[in-house]
């Protein structure tokens, strides 16, 4: 019940295209859903995050879409650029009086080709 399932495992998108990564969860207590971006040899960095009280959040070319009833959320990268090539992780956590723990998806390796 604590799992977050992420797909696809790898994704190749042409420059300028839309990259879409999907995640699904079972635990309805999850109330915070961040996406992290990780470049090779580096630690993950927070990209964008959403709470279940909104269905969409946009920051620049990055958008999270959230479907509470389906227990799914996705990351959309518009106008994908070679610099977006990285591994992306979705995650989820439950508010727990300051002791929140993130449950991560297995990651998606995104490659943007010219």
């Amino acid at each position, binding site marked *: 019940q604590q799992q977050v399932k992420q797909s696809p495992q790898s994704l190749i998108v042409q420059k300028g295209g839309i990259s879409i990564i999907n995640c699904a969860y079972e635990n309805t207590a999850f109330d915070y859903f961040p996406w992290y971006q990780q470049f090779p040899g580096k630690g*993950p960095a927070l990209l964008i995050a959403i709470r279940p009280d909104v269905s969409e959040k946009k920051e620049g070319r990055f958008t999270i879409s959230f479907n509470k009833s389906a227990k799914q959320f996705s990351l959309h990268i518009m106008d994908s650029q070679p610099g977006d090539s990285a591994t992306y992780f979705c995650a989820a956590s439950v508010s727990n*009086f300051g002791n*929140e*723990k*993130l449950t991560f998806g*297995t990651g998606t390796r995104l490659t943007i080709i010219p």
Partner: protein
Amino acid sequence: SQTIHQWPATLVQPVGSPLSLECTVEGTSNPNLYWYRQAAGRGLQLLFYSVGIGQISSEVPQNLSASRPQDRQFILSSKKLLLSDSGFYLCAWKQEYQETQYFGPGTRLLVL
């Protein structure tokens, strides 16, 4: 501003040798601290977390241990490394009552 440091950056150790990885956070107080392991091409597995000095919670039974001797210092240790301990070890911190975790640069461990 807050920064998180991990060292060493890379480590090659023989099977059966001890391990000590260190993580320190600057610019904040009483952070929650986390140790993750990332196997090659895999996701992040939470190993330990700490909400305060001397308070350690283990998520996965294994031959690793963690300690928090100071407020902003988190140490990952092992008495005898196994081949399966190889991986990328990440330390993270977050402010209490906030959700965002901030990751360090990681330590790549290769056990031979």
